[in-house]
């Protein structure tokens, strides 16, 4: 068997003049859990559907387990698929929906019965065997779609936002079940999600798509900590950007002068951010910024006022209007007090977490 469960090579899909998918290439290794992440309409579903064989690519090639399948019909690919819109068969009950694929594989009746019981238990649908899909809630329908795919224990499972309609508690438990199944069955998984928590926590690797193209392929930590572009940085998690000019770069430390005149010290990345005088962008994650309890002087300390506070339970996110006019978002955890809107604050931007990336002349990431 090939080392790669999926090899996607330069695939394309045109709808008239709309380039839904444009020269996308990536591989998924055997047993790996890979996520496709990207903004709405960026071509995730289209890519997945080409791999499953529902759409004929306008160009490029697809291999599954080393075998060229680009133009193979879907039933010859042996790939599990969970549809974004569920696609439950309306004339079949929950149990029948699940059993269909098993019957096609001529499984024994007892086996099918057990399997139905098992996957419905996993998806929390025990007791719903005889319901018709139209009599289920949205989340229940979504779980049937998942159960239907899991029942076949596919070697390769493609899922298109399979948990999007589930509450967090259920999603967490489903995620756990999926991961367990995946490692137990050594099932290779390609997972489309809009939930980056999901993508980061479950995946071995993440493919970031944007506008029909691949932006970055990386492991979760690398993706979050070293995004290849501002787009990725901003799309995966929240990022604060400071624009300025590089004034010095030595000893692994860069210095950036902001428009306000203030200078920020930052850790230099592996690649050089440029030479003094270059326009650069400095990035930092909200959870890295420190909200100072006491006024403080020193490098990388900025003043401002609270503009908005958002409470997420475990997290409190402040949007701060800096004295320079820039906006900064920072997150605190394990907090006990709330700052009023308008309250003056000081924050420290730890240099070791501030990264500098070069910019081209027009204010976009240099290529």
């Amino acid at each position, binding site marked *: 068997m090939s080392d790669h469960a999926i090899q996607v090579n330069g695939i394309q899909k045109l709808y008239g003049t709309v380039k839904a998918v444009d020269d996308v290439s990536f591989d998924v290794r055997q047993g790996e859990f890979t996520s496709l992440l990207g903004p709405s309409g960026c071509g995730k579903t289209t890519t997945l559907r080409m791999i499953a064989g*529902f759409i004929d690519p306008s160009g490029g090639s697809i291999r599954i387990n080393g075998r060229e399948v680009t133009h193979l*019909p*879907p039933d010859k690919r042996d790939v599990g698929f969970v549809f974004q*819109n569920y*696609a439950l*068969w309306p004339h079949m009950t929950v149990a029948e929906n699940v059993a*269909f694929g098993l019957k096609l594989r001529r499984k024994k009746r007892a086996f099918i019965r057990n399997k139905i019981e098992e996957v419905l238990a996993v998806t929390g649908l025990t007791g719903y065997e005889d319901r*018709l899909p139209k009599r289920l809630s949205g989340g229940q329908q979504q779980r049937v779609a998942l159960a239907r795919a899991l029942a*076949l224990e596919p070697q390769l499972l493609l899922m298109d936002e399979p948990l999007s309609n589930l509450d967090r508690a259920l999603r967490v438990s489903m995620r756990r079940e999926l991961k367990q199944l995946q490692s137990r069955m050594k099932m290779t998984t390609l997972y489309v999600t809009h939930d980056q928590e999901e993508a980061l926590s479950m995946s071995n690797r993440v493919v970031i798509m944007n506008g029909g193209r691949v932006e970055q392929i990386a492991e979760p930590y690398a993706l979050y900590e070293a995004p290849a572009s501002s787009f990725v940085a901003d799309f995966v998690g929240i990022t604060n950007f400071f624009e300025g000019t590089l004034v010095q770069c030595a000893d692994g430390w860069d210095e950036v002068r902001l428009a306000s005149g203030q200078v920020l010290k930052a850790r230099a990345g592996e690649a050089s951010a440029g030479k003094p005088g270059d326009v650069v962008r400095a990035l930092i994650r909200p959870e890295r910024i420190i909200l100072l309890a006491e006024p403080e002087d020193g490098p990388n300390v900025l003043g401002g006022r609270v503009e908005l506070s958002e409470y997420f339970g475990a997290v409190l996110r402040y949007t701060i209007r800096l004295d320079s006019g820039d906006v900064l978002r920072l997150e605190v955890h394990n907090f006990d007090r709330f700052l009023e809107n308008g309250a003056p604050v000081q924050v420290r931007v730890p240099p070791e977490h501030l990264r500098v990336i070069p910019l081209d002349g027009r204010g976009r990431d240099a290529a």
Partner: protein
Amino acid sequence: MLRRIAPPLVPVVIVLLIFVVAPMLWVFRTSFNELVDGAYMVDALTLKNYTRFLGNPWYLMNTLWFSIRIAVVTTAISVVCAYPVALYVARTHGLQRNILMTLIMAPLLIGLVTLVYGWIVIFRGGGLLNSLMIALHVYDEPVRYMWNIKGVVILLVYIGTPYIVLSLLDSIEKISPYLVEAARNVGASRWTAFWKIVFPLTMPGLYAGLVIVFSLNFAAFAVPLMVGDTSTQMIGLVIYREALLNNDLPFASALSVIMIAVNALILVGMAALFGRLILRKLESDR
């Protein structure tokens, strides 16, 4: 519940009460009357007309049962003919679709009598089909395709097919391609996906087509009249003859009552069968 379902049903029900039930009551009453001298009807209360039919095996077998058989067979053949055509038409658009539809409907547009002339050219003893078959040595003696049971079956199938295409179209169009994809994905071949997903989902349309064509064919009179012979005495034809040619309204009425009852039984049976199988599952509800 009543408040919700009554208003939409009331107009139809009233129209039917006034224009169907009332006249049919007269038919029911007439079925107990008597015909004198084969010429005129007098009021009576006799079961003669019923016993004349029910007591005669020829009527039971060669008209009633014969009609049921013909209707079943022709409807079934029409379905087989129509289904693929409907599948095909369902995925055409615009002009192509409209032209196909015109062609499919054409036989019905031009009227039965004219149509029969078209068929005569093809099917008569020295017609196109026989000439072709004889030229190809499929057989050497002309075969009779008209003015016997063959003609009746051919023509009923021919006329029934467009009706079934029409009734199927909408059901086919409504099937989301995702449902088929999902089936293909779990390993169903085109064929299996068709039988297990597409076919069941077209049941509402198929059912409509079956009911329509079965009823039309079961009651057919013009077709057996024009292209049948003495052995194709379908019950609709017998009723036509008794009522109009032989003036025997009482007997024709009794025949009608029997026919309506039988037809109703068959429809109820079909409704139960289809309802249980599939329709109820697909009904939209709120």
